[in-house]
């Protein structure tokens, strides 16, 4: 057993008397990861004691640091007393004490203490907040701080008194205990306070119990349970509430999710969502979701294979024209299985893919005809099952002048079984094929200013069969037209519809990469059809013999700016659809804004044009104050749907978050509400939120 030696270095060491060794001048003692510096140390070998004088600095191996005037410790530095000591834990939390007693290498007791993680400057020594206490015991093993007769002071003013207080030390990241409270005022619930209590249940499980009481006799208990397993983890959050919004009703919500690794690279994920009434999630500020989605899925992804089997249950809590969306006539239970394999084309060369997919969905209503309970014209009770097989192939050739010629083909067979539908009931089948010839001729060049340019004209001729079947289109009702499907053989999102007939897709893109790293990309495209089969609605931009012009512009700057603009406009430059997104994320400020303009379209049951500007930004007013602004303006309704202001103060020891937001939307179940939130977090305790910059000491 190797003997742990302590090393002492100094400018001068003198040996006198029978067992005294006196070291002077920049004396340093190192023992088991602890390092102690002082001006003068006397080592009494017989008593096995070390006495220190002059400013003493003790640092131990887990980042704790003690400064003291004098000290008398055992030779292994684990026991003894230090006078007018200042202990700094994890370079954050400071505890000044008249005396500090170390016992058994585990406990440190400090008397007449002032604890704070705030920067203390010599010229104004009053920290922003401090906890004064007769006695503090620091348990290094349990990483806890126990205060006796503690008094919380803000800017020197006593605010709170507690006979006994226990708090985790900064190095601890998980411990049972009360967490910082949040104050929340909403028009529906009045002013209330949330007081979370965190309970660790062993090393891999924990439970957070959060009572939330508010003036308009709102009483809520929220629970969050988390458990980590060897192969995955689950998290369940739920709450039960009673309030004046729905007096006399037990309200609540549940959200559970889990993710597990299964053998042979399979993965199981599940998510469950339930709520007692449509307005609950909004009233309690939990989420904006208007369709709850519970699902369980087993999937595996490899380079050439994707397998997924899943069940999904939808529940709509949405309001449409003042009427809650009926869940009976919506497909609420969906089952899918997908196997997609990719492989080389073998003798044909190139890249090929085979996909086998089954899909079925179920409506609880049993009516086989459409009523006006909902706004669609689908039989209320229609249930559908589909099995599809799709084979695709594609190959590139590079020709002499640098033109990349790609030949591609896709053939799909679908088998449908539709039930509880007077018009479409029974089984249907369909065979659909498409072939394409694509020519790409990219040019690359450099200009005098050092920029690199890529200009790429693309032309694609597609011949597709004509679908004679009368299969109703449910999953391909919503069509988008962008650079992602300008050159696709089939632009429908699902399998219920396939794009028919011959067409020519034409596109041109120009991208400029500046030497400094920012890039500008412009692209345009259009679809020319031989014959219009009326498969697309006007709002998709793909209708007519010639489609709308697709134009996109994008600017990206390294370091977090990306601006993307996409528009569809018809020949006479009338805008069909325009979307703009700017995302800027810098250290001092960030802005995320989006603008959309969409034409009304009955096929997509969008009864009115949609025109909305959304804005969400933050700006560092000073290095501790940050202003936040968010808003959503609906130009059609000509008023804001949501506006929010926020102010955050974060320095090395305190985090204050003020937020004021107003939601203007109202429906049968949801009323406009104003939400004011205040949360105060003392930083430096138990590895809580990341501290901000320390204030500079003036003078």
């Amino acid at each position: 057993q190797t003997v742990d030696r302590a090393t002492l270095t100094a400018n001068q060491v003198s040996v006198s008397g029978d067992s005294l060794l006196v070291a002077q001048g920049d004396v340093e003692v190192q023992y088991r990861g602890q390092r102690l510096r002082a001006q003068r140390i006397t080592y009494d070998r017989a008593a096995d004691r070390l006495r220190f004088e002059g400013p003493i600095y003790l640092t131990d191996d887990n980042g704790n640091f003690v400064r003291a005037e004098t000290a008398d410790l055992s030779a292994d530095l684990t026991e003894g007393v230090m006078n007018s000591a200042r202990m700094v834990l994890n370079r954050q939390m400071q505890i000044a004490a008249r005396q500090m007693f170390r016992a058994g290498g585990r406990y440190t007791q400090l008397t007449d203490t002032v604890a704070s993680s705030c920067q203390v400057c010599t010229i104004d020594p009053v920290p922003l907040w401090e906890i004064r206490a007769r006695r503090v015991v620091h348990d290094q093993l349990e990483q806890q701080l126990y205060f006796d007769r503690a008094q919380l002071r803000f800017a020197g003013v006593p605010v709170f008194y507690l006979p006994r207080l226990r708090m985790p030390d900064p190095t601890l990241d998980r411990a049972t205990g009360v967490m910082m409270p949040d104050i929340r005022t909403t028009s529906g619930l009045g002013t209330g306070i949330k007081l979370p209590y965190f309970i660790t249940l062993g090393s891999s499980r924990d439970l957070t119990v959060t009572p939330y009481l508010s003036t308009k006799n709102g009483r809520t208990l929220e629970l969050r349970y988390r458990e980590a397993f060897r192969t995955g983890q689950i998290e369940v959050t739920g709450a039960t509430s009673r309030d004046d919004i729905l007096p006399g009703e037990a309200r609540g919500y549940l959200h559970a999710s889990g993710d597990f690794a299964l053998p042979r690279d399979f993965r199981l994920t599940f998510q469950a969502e339930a709520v007692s009434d449509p307005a609950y999630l909004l009233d309690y500020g939990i989420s904006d979701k208007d369709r709850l989605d519970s699902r369980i899925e087993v999937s595996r992804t490899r380079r050439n294979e994707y397998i997924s089997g899943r069940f999904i249950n939808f529940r709509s809590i949405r309001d449409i024209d003042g009427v809650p969306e009926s869940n009976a006539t919506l497909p609420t239970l969906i089952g899918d299985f997908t196997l997609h394999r990719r492989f080389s084309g073998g003798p044909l060369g190139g890249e090929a893919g085979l996909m086998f997919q089954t899909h079925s969905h179920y409506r609880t209503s049993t009516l086989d005809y459409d009523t006006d309970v909902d706004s669609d014209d689908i039989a209320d009770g229609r249930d559908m099952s589909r099995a599809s097989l799709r084979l695709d192939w594609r190959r590139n050739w590079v020709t002499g002048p640098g033109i990349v010629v790609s030949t591609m083909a896709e053939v799909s067979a679908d088998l449908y079984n539709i039930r509880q539908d007077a018009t479409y009931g029974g089984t249907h089948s369909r065979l659909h094929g498409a072939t394409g010839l694509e020519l790409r001729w990219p040019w690359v060049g450099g200009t005098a200013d050092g920029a690199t340019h890529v200009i790429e004209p693309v032309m694609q001729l597609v011949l597709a069969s004509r679908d004679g079947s009368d299969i109703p289109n449910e999953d391909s009702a919503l069509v988008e037209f962008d650079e992602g499907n300008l050159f696709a053989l089939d632009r429908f999102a699902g399998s219920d519809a396939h794009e028919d007939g011959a067409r020519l897709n034409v596109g041109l893109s120009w991208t400029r990469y500046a030497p400094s790293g920012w890039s500008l990309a412009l692209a345009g495209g259009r679809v020319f059809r031989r014959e219009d089969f009326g498969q697309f609605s006007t709002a998709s931009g793909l209708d007519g013999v010639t489609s709308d012009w697709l134009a996109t512009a994008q600017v990206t700057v390294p370091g977090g700016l990306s601006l993307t603009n996409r528009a569809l406009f018809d020949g006479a430059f009338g805008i069909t659809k325009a979307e703009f997104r700017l995302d800027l994320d810098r250290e001092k400020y960030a802005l995320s804004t989006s603008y959309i303009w969409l034409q009304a379209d009955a096929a997509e049951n969008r009864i009115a044009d949609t025109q909305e500007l959304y804005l969400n930004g933050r700006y560092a007013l000073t290095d501790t104050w940050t202003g936040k602004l968010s808003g959503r303006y609906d130009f059609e309704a000509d008023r804001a749907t949501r506006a929010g202001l926020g102010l955050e103060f974060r320095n090395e020891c305190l985090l204050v978050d003020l937020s004021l937001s107003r939601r203007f939307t109202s429906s049968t179940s949801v009323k406009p509400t104003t939400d004011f939130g205040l949360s105060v977090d003392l930083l430096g305790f138990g590895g809580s939120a990341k501290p901000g910059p320390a204030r500079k000491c003036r003078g």
Partner: protein
Amino acid sequence: QQANIAFGGLKQDTSLPVQVEADNLTVEQATGTAVFSGNVRVAQGDLKLAAARVQVEYAADGKAIERLHASGGVTMANATDAAESKEAVYTIGSGNLVMTGDVLLTQGKSAIAGQKLVIDLKAGTGTMQGRVSTTFVPGNK
């Protein structure tokens, strides 16, 4: 193994006679000094001193040794302690032993290293200077 190795073990009665042995000796009448060389051994009671070369300076009466100047790697030992250094000067009258140059003083389990060690053999005290480093075993094991 004594319970506590007293540092004070450096105490030494400096009035005892000093014997010096060596392979060869050269004497210079004019300066009254003698130079012993070749594994020189100096002994005074428990104090033993060994060096490659020791120059002895005698007192005015020519008989008593006043000072020993040892060089070429010196080791000093007494009943409980030992020290080594490049050079050492022992002034017998004052009981002052000064060892200089990579000095290492070992006492039981602890050792002190430095550049200059001044030992007062009469008082039994020693002071090490220069960037000194020493190791000790807390808990006195």
